[in-house]
């Protein structure tokens, strides 16, 4: 299990670096899927099979599907934003590397072994619907609010709402830029 953990962790780190460095958006998203799969393997080796399955189903399945749909809707192939110049990000990256070194040093001051064994779906569900049931309700409210908010934000402003929301900003030039797909979404 320890070997599996280190292999999967190395794959996760490499794939995540590729996400950050690829200039093609779709390639970056594919590497992100690999990274999420690798983290799922890490969860499995840590004795959390339920969370590993959810990582694959929700993160690599549902959330990445949202990303791919957004890429399809937006037709991002047409334009690639220029990369930020190296001088702009070299300083922050060096400083964050220093902070990471400090963090790793602080973590390594004390070591503990994990408890071992696996915490299965039964125990997780018992905790989820026992002491954490209020959090589950709040999460459902959050997801509902996100659903309504996403529908409201992504919908093209129509009628009176369009007059208020987009007054004078993008009115006439908006029509040619909109790809045909978003109108189909509203159906």
């Amino acid at each position, binding site marked *: 299990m320890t070997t599996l953990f280190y292999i999967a962790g190395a794959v996760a780190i490499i794939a995540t670096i590729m996400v950050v460095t690829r200039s093609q958006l779709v390639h970056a998203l594919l590497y992100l899927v690999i990274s999420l799969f690798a983290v799922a393997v890490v969860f499995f080796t840590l004795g*959390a099979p339920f969370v590993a399955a959810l990582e694959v189903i929700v993160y690599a399945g549902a959330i990445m599907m949202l*990303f791919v749909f957004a890429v399809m809707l937006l037709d991002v192939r047409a334009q690639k934003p220029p990369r930020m110049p190296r001088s702009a*990000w070299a300083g922050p990256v060096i400083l964050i590397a220093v902070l990471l070194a400090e963090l790793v040093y602080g973590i390594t001051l004390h*070591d503990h072994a994990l408890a071992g064994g696996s915490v299965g779906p039964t125990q*997780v569900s018992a905790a989820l619907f026992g002491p954490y049931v209020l*959090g589950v309700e709040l999460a459902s409210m959050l997801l509902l609010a996100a659903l309504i908010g996403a529908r409201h934000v992504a919908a*093209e402003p129509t009628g009176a709402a369009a007059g208020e929301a987009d007054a004078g900003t993008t009115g006439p030039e908006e029509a040619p830029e909109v790809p045909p797909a978003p109108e189909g979404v509203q159906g």
Partner: protein
Amino acid sequence: MATVSLNSGLILAAILFVIGFVGLITRRNLIVVLACIEIMLNAAGLAFVVAGARWGRADGQVMFLFVLAMAAAEVAVGLALAIRFRQALGRLDIDAADEMRG
């Protein structure tokens, strides 16, 4: 069966978080910025699960589920904003939003 040490898991979470943060500050594409936020949230969830596995309790996994729900909500709203961003500004470059001032 030898188990993974707590440090290895936490260091992995820290490295993934920092890579996500570097991507957040160096990339300009709005979709990639959202993906980097996902990486950071995932790393935070990994730290929760590692800490839960340290004690053999389910609480860490419960917290990961909450992080997961929050990430799903965030990416739904974020991608909706990206679609509007593209419609309003014509490109996905986050620097385009500096025209929003005033």
